[in-house]
Every structure is written in structure tokens, then in C-alpha cells.
């Protein structure tokens, strides 16, 4: 490696290491005492935790893969009534935080919810416990997270060469056979990428699992920290999560393989048309997913909000909204800036396997629950202060704890995967020949980045920023623990009200979040349509 590459790689490696700091803090927990409590956890809880987490991951993974892929295939490949507006409407569930959908479903289908009351009193059916077993929570996760697979698979289907599908048709394959034998295998890397994000989100979720009283690693981490006051065991459990995420990323890379599956051309021809009752059947299917995942929950939130609006609304909401907007936008800009630097095409980067591994490491924060990220950071700052004090310097605690800087750092580290996936996807499409011709035309590295790479990566950068913004807006635990005084966000308001069982009043801030999120998602969708 030449000197220029060495220097450039060192800077990128340093950046990746800084982003990955919370991972190291969490992993370093194994060096700390906590053995007895860990042994207690391992003996009494670990097996159940592993089983319930695996069942959850399998159920959610299978569900989102099937639903997301089928929906994407239908809107891209088949013309049916309502296809055009359903294609973008299916993105909207992204705007709903998972815990909001969970509290709406619990509010409606719980034993005392009006759906069950009506089923018992009018239909005479026996009551049931929606929290029992695995199916209700798995269904909730599928409805919230299917858009990840839908989004990736849709982009991939749009890039499939129409000739291959036509060749399949000419060879006499039925639409279902073309779907199974041609389209799905070609879209496999995209489906795997969507699945990876879904599984990492499911692993890191706290809101839904705690509302459903479902035990996973995240709830155990809370219990270790909240009930047993052991930051070490909490971090040790969290490091297992990181390990699982690491394996998931490895399998996703393997699924992706070395083959290039797509062309860069986008086709707007739909090979199939569904007329008559089959068309309406498809419409009914896609529409019902949209109703269950977005329209009905929103309607319920609106009904609750209208009932309590006068009581709940006050001037404080301007401040909640302002805090949410400022944090969301600054975190999005910061995260995507770092992600762009990490993703810029570079021949030097390609030469170093270690650097590539470090960059992957910097995206693992996505599997860390927000609370673990927050605790890890506080713990890290405290240790730095101790070292600094030991060396005769001053403590960093007073200006880092409760500062915007620490909170923004947590967001950057937590959501790097989202931003990096998007920016690196657009960077991978830049052929090396562009760099070579720019250099032969005398362009400096700065000019190459500024005038060639960045404009070509802009759609990916913008899309990454919008997705990060939606996630930051919905983020709860890290914000709750690290926010500066007086910086309550809409998510915190939802949490505080719903934690007290005031679901109807929580609907007001939830509705504001959904509207804010929907605006961001519509902007994303518009950007995405101009790319596809």
C-alpha cells in the first residue's frame, strides 16, 4: 500500500472506530466483575431468552420476507386496480413507531379493548389473551417492519431486465413460476438486505416487547440494569446481541454473493396485467395490508386524539415539536455526512480488509438497544473522566452528560447502518472508470469527490438522511436517558403518557409524530421514484 493510501485509510479507520466506540464499551464489559450475577442469569433465564428470541426472529423474518417480497412483486410486475397509489402508500407504515402500533393494537384487541368486548358480547366468542404466545407480537412486528423488505425488493424488481422475464414467459412459465424461478432468486440480495435490517430492529426493540410482556434479550438487559443494578451484566447481555448481529451481517453478505444481479437500467413495463376478479382480489390483498399496517391504526389514533385534544393540547407541544425537529434534522445531517465519508469510493479502501471490517463494525450499533447505547456512552464518558482525573486533568462529566453532543453521538452510532447502507449502495454503482477518467483529466482527489462522487451519490445520501430522520424521530430510550434538560421530544411525551396507561392522551403526540414521519416518507418516496 502506498503512503497516500496508508494516510487516507488511517483517517477513515479512525472515524469508523469513533462511531463504533459504544460497541467496544459494551464488549469491554466481559473484562469486568459480575460473574455471580451472570451465572445466575445464565442458569435461570438464558435458555428461555434464547428460545423466545429465536422464535421471534424466525417468525418475524419469515413473515416480512414473504409479505414484503410478494407486495413488491405485485406493485412492480403486475398491473391491477389501485396499484399506482398503493405502491407509495405501502411505504407509510415506516412513519409509525413500532410501540405506537403496539399500543393501538393492544388498546383495541386487549381483553378490555372494544374489539374483544364486541366479539364476546355480540358473537358470544370466548375471550383470549392477546399477550399469550408468540403470534400477536410476531404479527405486530411484521406489520411494522415489512416495509424494509418491500422497499429493497421493489428497487431490485424494478432493475430486473425485462428480457429475462419475457424469456421466461416465452418458454411457457406461468407467472408464479417466473416469480419463484427468476424474479425472487434475482432479488435475493435485496431481500436479504431488507431482512437484515428487520432482524436487527427486532433484536433492538424495547417498546413492543415490553408492552406485550414478551421476554427477549432487550427486556433481560433492562432487568439486569434496572432490577439488579448491574451495568456489567447488562453490557454482557448486550454484547451477545452484537454477536448475533455480526453473524446476521455475515450471512447477508454470503447471500449476496459475488454475482452482479441487476442492471442499472430501470424498466417501467409491467409484464403482467390482472383483469377482472383476479385484479380486484389482488387489490383487496394489498389494500388490506395497507389498512392493517397504517390506515386503521391511524384512524384509531385520530379518534382518540379528537376525544382528548382540548384537554391534552397546550403550548408545550410547540416545544416538543421543535426539540423533535432540531434533533431529527441535525442527527440526520451528521449521520449521513459520516456515512458518506465512510462510503466514498476509494481504491485505497479496497486494498485493506481490516478497514472494511472496521467500517462494518461501525454499523453494528444498529443492533444495540437505544438504552444500552446510552448506558454504554455514559459509562465510557465516566471512565474517560476517571482517567483524565488520574492524569491531573478535569472531568468531562459536567459538560458531556445531558449535552446535545452526547445524544447526537448516540444517534450517529445507532443509525449508522441505515445511512451507510444507503450511501454505500449509491457509491457501489459508481464504476471505477469514472475515477480513472477524472484523474487522467487532471482532477485532484478533492475535485473528484466534490464534482464526480458527491453528485452521483446525492440520491443515496438524501434517501439515507430521510430514513435516519424517521428513525431518530421515533427513537425513545437513548433520547430519554441522554436528552439535555428541557429537550422533551414527541416520542418522550408518547412514552410518558402511555406508561401511565393514558393511551388516548398519548394519541395526540403520536399523531403529530406520524404526520411528521409521513411527510419525511413522502419526500423519500418522491426521491426514490425519481431514481427508479
Amino acid at each position, binding site marked *: 500500500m502506498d503512503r497516500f493510501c496508508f494516510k487516507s485509510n488511517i483517517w477513515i479507520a479512525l472515524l469508523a472506530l469513533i462511531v463504533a466506540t459504544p460497541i467496544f464499551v459494551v464488549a469491554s464489559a466481559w473484562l469486568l466483575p459480575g460473574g455471580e450475577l451472570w451465572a445466575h442469569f445464565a442458569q435461570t433465564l438464558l435458555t428461555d431468552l434464547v428460545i423466545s428470541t429465536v422464535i421471534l426472529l424466525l417468525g418475524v423474518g419469515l413473515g416480512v420476507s414473504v409479505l414484503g417480497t410478494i407486495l413488491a412483486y405485485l406493485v412492480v410486475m403486475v398491473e391491477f386496480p389501485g396499484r399506482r397509489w398503493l405502491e407509495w402508500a405501502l411505504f407509510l407504515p415506516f412513519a409509525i413507531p413500532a410501540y405506537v402500533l403496539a399500543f393501538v393494537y393492544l388498546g383495541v384487541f386487549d381483553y378490555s379493548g372494544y374489539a374483544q368486548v364486541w366479539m364476546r358480547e355480540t358473537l358470544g366468542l370466548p375471550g383470549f389473551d392477546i399477550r399469550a404466545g408468540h403470534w400477536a407480537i410476531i404479527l405486530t412486528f411484521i406489520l411494522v417492519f415489512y416495509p424494509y423488505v418491500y422497499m429493497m425488493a421493489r428497487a431490485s424488481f424494478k432493475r430486473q431486465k425485462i428480457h429475462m422475464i419475457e424469456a421466461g414467459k416465452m418458454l411457457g412459465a406461468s407467472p408464479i413460476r417466473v416469480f419463484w424461478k427468476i424474479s425472487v432468486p434475482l432479488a435475493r440480495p435485496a431481500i436479504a438486505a431488507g431482512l437484515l435490517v428487520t432482524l436487527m430492529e427486532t433484536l433492538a426493540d424495547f417498546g413492543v416487547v415490553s408492552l406485550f410482556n414478551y421476554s427477549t434479550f432487550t427486556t433481560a438487559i433492562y432487568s439486569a440494569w434496572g432490577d439488579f443494578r448491574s451495568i456489567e451484566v447488562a453490557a454482557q447481555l448486550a454484547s451477545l446481541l452484537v454477536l448475533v448481529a455480526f453473524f446476521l451481517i455475515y450471512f447477508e453478505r454470503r447471500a449476496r454473493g459475488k454475482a452482479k444481479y441487476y442492471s442499472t437500467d430501470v424498466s417501467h413495463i409491467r409484464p403482467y396485467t390482472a383483469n377482472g376478479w383476479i385484479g380486484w382480489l389482488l387489490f383487496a390483498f394489498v389494500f388490506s395490508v395497507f389498512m392493517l399496517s397504517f390506515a386503521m391504526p391511524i384512524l384509531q389514533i385520530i379518534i382518540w386524539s379528537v376525544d382528548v385534544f382540548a384537554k391534552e393540547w397546550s403550548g408545550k407541544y410547540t416545544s416538543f415539536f421543535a426539540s423533535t425537529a432540531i434533533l431529527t434534522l441535525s442527527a440526520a445531517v451528521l449521520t449521513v455526512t459520516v456515512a458518506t465519508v465512510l462510503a466514498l469510493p476509494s481504491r485505497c479502501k479496497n486494498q485493506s480488509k481490516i478497514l472494511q471490517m472496521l467500517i462494518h463494525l461501525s454499523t453494528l450499533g444498529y443492533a444495540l438497544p437505544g438504552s444500552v447505547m446510552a448506558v454504554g456512552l455514559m459509562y465510557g464518558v465516566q471512565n474517560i473522566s476517571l482517567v483524565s482525573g488520574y492524569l491531573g486533568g478535569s472531568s468531562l462529566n459536567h459538560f458531556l452528560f445531558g449535552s446535545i453532543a452526547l445524544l447526537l453521538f448516540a444517534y450517529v452510532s445507532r443509525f449508522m447502518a441505515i445511512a451507510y447502507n444507503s450511501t454505500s449502495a449509491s457509491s457501489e454503482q459508481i464504476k471505477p472508470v469514472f475515477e*480513472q477518467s477524472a484523474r487522467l483529466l487532471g*482532477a485532484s482527489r478533492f475535485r473528484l469527490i466534490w464534482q464526480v462522487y458527491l453528485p452521483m451519490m446525492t440520491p443515496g445520501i438524501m434517501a439515507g438522511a430521510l430514513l435516519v430522520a424517521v428513525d431518530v424521530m421515533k427513537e425513545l430510550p437513548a433520547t430519554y436517558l441522554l436528552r439535555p434538560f428541557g429537550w422533551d421530544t414527541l416520542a418522550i411525551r408518547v412514552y410518558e403518557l402511555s406508561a401511565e396507561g393514558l393511551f388516548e392522551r398519548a394519541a395526540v403526540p403520536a399523531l403529530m409524530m406520524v404526520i411528521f414521519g409521513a411527510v419525511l416518507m413522502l419526500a423519500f418516496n418522491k426521491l426514490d421514484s425519481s431514481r427508479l
Partner: protein
Amino acid sequence: MLSVSDLTISFDDNQVLEGFNLVLESGDIFALLGDSGSGKSSALRFIAGLESAQSGAVVLDGNDLSSNGTHQMRPEQREIGMVFQDYALFPHMTVFQNICFGINELSKENKVKKVSELLQLICLDGIEEKYPHQLSGGEQQRVCLARSLATSPKLLLLDEPFSSLDKSHRDQLVKEVREILKKEGVTSILVTHDQNEAENFADKIGQIDKKQLRIN
């Protein structure tokens, strides 16, 4: 004058070129023929400074560009132009912006003048504001040529630039490009696997055969 001496290139123990020597006088148009994988493109990319080699030196107009298989000058300092097989026009820039990319230091007026002259030269006047995707393959390749010529390179390398065009367009463009290069007096090397194309294009032809260059 260009001199390439003792160039040896291997990929993972597989030697493709051994002791490759080439001398071109100013204004020469040379074609390098060879089968796929014969190392002809690698030789071109070594001269451009884009790839290293096991051994080899390049001297252009008295300047040492590379010696012992490593490069003394970076590609951007060599004053060498290159036209690639798959066009490599920047898709987000107009034809005008693409051609101006290498002559950034000129004033706006001079840029306009230069672009207009070059577009006349490649017989595509008036397409300044078009984007690459609005042009045919042949048009894109001619704009690529104009972009490389804008910097007045001492040497122009053409890496199978005609291979993605259909035959009738290809023959026509080969003749046109040759005329343009002759008119401008640019020393050029074309890499191709098509004997006919080499004959129509070049003053001198060399063939890579059993890792060695034979000048016909």
C-alpha cells in the same frame, strides 16, 4: 516521443506480458492487437499510470513517468488522455460540463470557445446542453474523445473504444476518429482485437503473441 521498455505484467503467477518494448514518434497512430486476456489493456493502463507492473519503464517527451514497474508520476500529472470502452462520460454533467472537466482553469469565454471548436471537430455542434443518456453510443464515444482532446494531451490511449458499437457505425467512426487525430497531430495507441479496425485506424500495428510484442 513515447518509449515503453521491458514491461512485464503478471496476474497471480500468470505472466501475460514479458519484456514488452515500444517506441513511438510524435504524431504516430499505433494499434495494439491481441486476444482477450493477452495483456494489451493492462499495458495501456500501465502507461496511463492506473496499474502497476512487475517491471517496465515509460518515458514521454523526456519525462520519466514510470520505472521498475512503479510510477513516478500520478495519472493526473501525466498529460495523457484516455478513451474507455464504456464511454465513462459523467452521467450527471452535460456535454459542455463533461468536456470542460479537464480544462477547469480556463476562463468561461475560453471554455465556450474550446468546446464549440471541439464539437465542430467531432461533427456534433449544438449538443452542449444535452446529457449523456440523450446521446447514442457513437455520439457518446465522440464526446469522450473531445473531452480527452480538450486537455491537449501528449499521448492519447484508446481502450477498445469502438467495441460496443454496431459494425456500420464502427467503421465510419474509426475513419472519423483517425482523421481527427491526424488533424490534431496527437500520438495515439488503440487497443483492439479486431484486425480490420486496426488496419483502418493505425499507421503501425503491433500484435501480442506469446507474451511478446511483434511489430508488423
